[in-house]
């Protein structure tokens, strides 16, 4: 669930055991979005999606922040 990831706490300090590339823990969504929304090869697709690059980041972060604030204010998602 997004909520657990977004509210992840506690020291995951320098998780320095690479152990042959095993995932150490479930990846935090925010770290993934840092990369997926701003990284990767940008090539024109066939769909006229203008929500790319900066626009996409803004759109998605708005979604994230809205969710976090909703949770903080005690509202439950259906």
């Amino acid at each position, binding site marked *: 669930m*997004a909520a657990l990831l*977004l*509210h*992840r*706490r506690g*020291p*995951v*300090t*320098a*998780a*320095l055991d*690479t152990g042959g*590339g095993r995932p*150490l823990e479930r*990846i*935090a*969504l*925010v*770290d*993934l*979005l*840092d*990369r*997926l*929304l*701003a*990284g*990767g*090869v*940008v*090539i024109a*697709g*066939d*769909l*006229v*999606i203008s*929500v*790319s690059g900066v626009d*996409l980041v803004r*759109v*998605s*972060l*708005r*979604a*994230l*922040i*809205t*969710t*976090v*604030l909703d949770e903080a204010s005690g509202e439950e998602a259906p």
Partner: protein
Amino acid sequence: MTEVRTDGGTAVYLYGVARDLDPAALPGTGVAGAPVRGVPAAGLTALVSTVRLEEYGEAALRANLEDLAWLEATARTHHAVVERAARAAPTAPVRIATIYSDDDRVAEVLTSEGGRFAEILDRVAGRTEWGVKAYAAPAPAVQDAPPAEPSSGTAYLRGRQREQRRRADAGRRSAELAGELHAELADGAVASRHHPAQDARLSGRTDVQVLNAAYLLDDDRVEEFLAAAQRAQDRLAGIELEVTGPWPPYSFIEGDR
């Protein structure tokens, strides 16, 4: 821009482009549960799966990208596909939600963009991305001073100025530490990139993120890099490091700019 039907048709979702990928290593399942397949062209393999336009068409995509649960599921699946391919062969991840009409169009793009993909794959082959975030504990409140009731307006203002200076100093020190830390880590990397600091509401942390960076490492320099990060962690009081990786090279697609 091609007009794409949205009436129950399908399209093709592109995850990334690999070179010398053993077809047996093709990642299994893509977004919406569809199997991932390889589209070969120009000596490259595009990793794709079929999507329905009612979910991935333009209007649907625009709405879905606003839906956190949908975005998370898509991002995690996209990442899983790219990551499995990247473990098997040099792989250039493509920006999330890049959609084509059909496999033929994907093959066309591989051919027309082949030079660019070759350049990217040359740069990332034998390398992985590592993320390092550093957090500084907030400066502790000053214990030694202000009386509960300032004796005068002037004393109150002075106290406030002192507090502002103290915070500014602490901020500067954190920024300096982050700069030093980054220089040290970048030293062992082929390239580095700064990501914007993550909003505290997203990271769920109350301390201040003073560094959010990615480093592209040669495979045989990873241990060394991690040891350097560990030494920095041991040395820098009040700074907490968080290292993630290995990542496919999402942050190192563009050359130095």
